């Protein structure tokens, strides 16, 4: 059986503002925000995308929903190739992929009550639903909210409640794939737990595939089956999340994992502190793109770009000198 979602070598390119004349100079006319990303999501599985701000996580999510300009690559959903033509809006697959936006209050219309907001998906997609308002109440109870909230406006909700409404809206049309962009950012720990438990429950009940975008690694550890680490629009390491937590190969993953602040005030980890800033997407470094901040950088890293290496268990990474291998050894993959 084919995967729920399969992405091959996806690229997203944005055009930069500026006139034709200014383009004649050296200024680049485009910026590649997502650069050759491939991934598979199975039904009932969660894949987490981690990386710093500006690494292209959200753009990737947008592209999968048809909200960002795709330059190249292929996306298969339920085994069918998604067409990115002009009529993609009418594509029946659109209601099978839903997106939960980062800012829960901002993504709800301030002038619609929760009832209206929850009934809207049924009207937009003309599902023939006779009583969308009843559906709205069903969705509210599905995410564990009181029916009293139906007539409130978004600004009258707490952060956790707004988040739940976001979840309700996302699962309204029984999607197969839910893309959750930072579903817990800015939430307190106990409310964060509630939202994540809700997602896990819905995943079990509805067989949802979930793509979780976050930079909270503790959340990834508990929620994700697979994970991908993104840096400057590329996946630098990808595989089974438990394995990556235990035995990561890319130095950037190592730095990310070690940066995770720890609850134990006694414990002082051997922290790998990254120096410098994330390079600009407009001036990607030559060679390996992490070489400007990598603690293991060698001469070779500045010259050529490391190809993807695949371990025996399907764990992939892009690095010449991965962790677990002495720097004196010949570069990896040896070719």
């Amino acid at each position, binding site marked *: 059986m084919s995967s729920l979602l399969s992405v091959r070598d996806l690229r997203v390119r944005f055009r930069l503002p500026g006139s034709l004349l200014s383009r004649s100079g050296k200024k680049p006319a485009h910026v590649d925000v997502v650069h050759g990303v491939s991934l598979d999501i199975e039904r009932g599985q969660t894949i987490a995308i981690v990386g*710093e*701000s*500006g690494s292209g996580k959200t753009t990737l999510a947008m592209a999968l929903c048809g909200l960002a300009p795709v330059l190249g690559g292929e996306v298969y959903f339920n085994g069918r190739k998604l067409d990115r033509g002009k009529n993609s809006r009418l594509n029946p697959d659109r209601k099978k992929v839903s997106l939960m936006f980062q800012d829960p209050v901002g993504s709800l219309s301030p002038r619609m009550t929760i009832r209206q907001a929850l009934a809207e998906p049924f009207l937009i997609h003309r599902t023939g639903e006779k009583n969308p308002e009843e559906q709205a109440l069903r969705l509210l109870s599905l995410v564990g909210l009181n029916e009293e909230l139906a007539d409130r406006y978004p600004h009258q909700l*707490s*952060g956790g409640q707004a988040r739940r409404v976001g979840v309700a809206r996302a699962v309204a049309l029984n999607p197969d794939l839910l893309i959750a962009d930072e579903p817990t950012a*800015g939430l*307190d*720990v*106990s*409310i*964060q*737990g*509630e939202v*994540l*438990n809700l997602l*896990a429950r819905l995943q079990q009940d509805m067989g949802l595939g979930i793509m979780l975008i976050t*930079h*909270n*690694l*503790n*959340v990834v*550890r*508990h*929620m994700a089956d697979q994970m991908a680490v993104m840096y400057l629009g590329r996946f630098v390491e990808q595989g089974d999340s*438990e394995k990556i937590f235990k035995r990561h190969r890319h130095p950037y993953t190592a*730095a*990310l994992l070690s*940066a*995770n*602040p*720890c*609850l*134990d*005030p*006694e414990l002082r980890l051997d*922290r790998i*502190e*990254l120096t*410098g*800033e*994330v390079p600009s997407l407009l001036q990607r470094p030559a060679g390996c793109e992490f070489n400007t901040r990598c603690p293991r950088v060698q001469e070779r890293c500045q010259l050529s770009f490391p190809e993807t290496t695949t371990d025996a268990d399907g764990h992939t990474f892009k690095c010449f000198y991965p962790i677990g291998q002495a720097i004196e050894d010949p570069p990896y993959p040896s070719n």
Partner: protein
Amino acid sequence: MNTPVLQIRDLSVSYRTERGLLQALRHVSFSVPEGKIIGIVGESGCGKSTLISSIMRLFAPNAQVDNGSIVFKGRDLLGLSPDDMRSLRGDEISMVFQDPMTSLNPVLNIGRQMADVQNRSGSSRVDKRARSLMMLERVGIPDPVSQLSRYPHQLSGGMRQRVAIAMALMTEPSLLIADEPTTALDATLEVQIIHRLQELQRDFGCSILFVSHHLGVIAELCDEVIVMYAGEVCECGPTREVFFEPRHPYTQKLLECDPARIQRRTRQLPVIGGSLPNLVDLPPGCIFRQRCEQAMTRCATNRPVLSADVHRAACHLQDAGS
């Protein structure tokens, strides 16, 4: 022992709302010793922001102080004239906000903003510029000279927050209040900023009041921690003790909930059942009672007070145990 930089005694602040008087802070007492980093943790709605605005005396129009004092270096801030208070703000007490993009002025370049902060120093433009450069270097900003002519939107999130910290420390304040300064940042930057703050605190010898809901950051950075719930201090003490032996059931719950603490992978994360009490119509007795699994009959009627130890908790279980 030397006198604390900031001492808050029995502070109660409430807001006049349509539904009645919302008691946002009730009988809050704690002190910030000289040269220490004190963390305040608590979930949204616990009164962290009200506490900060009380110290800065930047109250919302509908706020009122019902009781208590805020003594900063021997002077009660609540009794100062607006002019005296203004001369303290930004000079003796400065602040770093959560979102550096909105706390920096988007239409002025960094150099101009940093010079403006030094307005009261009366030094020359050349001196102000030199001092700005020195501060930018201290907070670890590469190539400070070119940064001075840039605007906030041209900087990355981590750089902006470092500029904000540089500006806050420029006047060498005795107290720096940091309100969730790392919430908007990624994990790698968060660590960089925390270490930078620790270094700067040692160099400048100021005290820091660090507000966050991120328990890991507090554990790593702070000497002492204050746990707040629904407008009350429920536990305070040295960070190590509070994290290793939390005494208040709320602190215990809060620590249990953090997914970082749970070593084994789990799909079902623990949560604190129930919700915050209504602060307009306060329940009698202990404020945490309705969500507490260890509540006793006494908790329904008597409000627990903070015990007298170094590591203190406001809970009836404390006196029951001893």
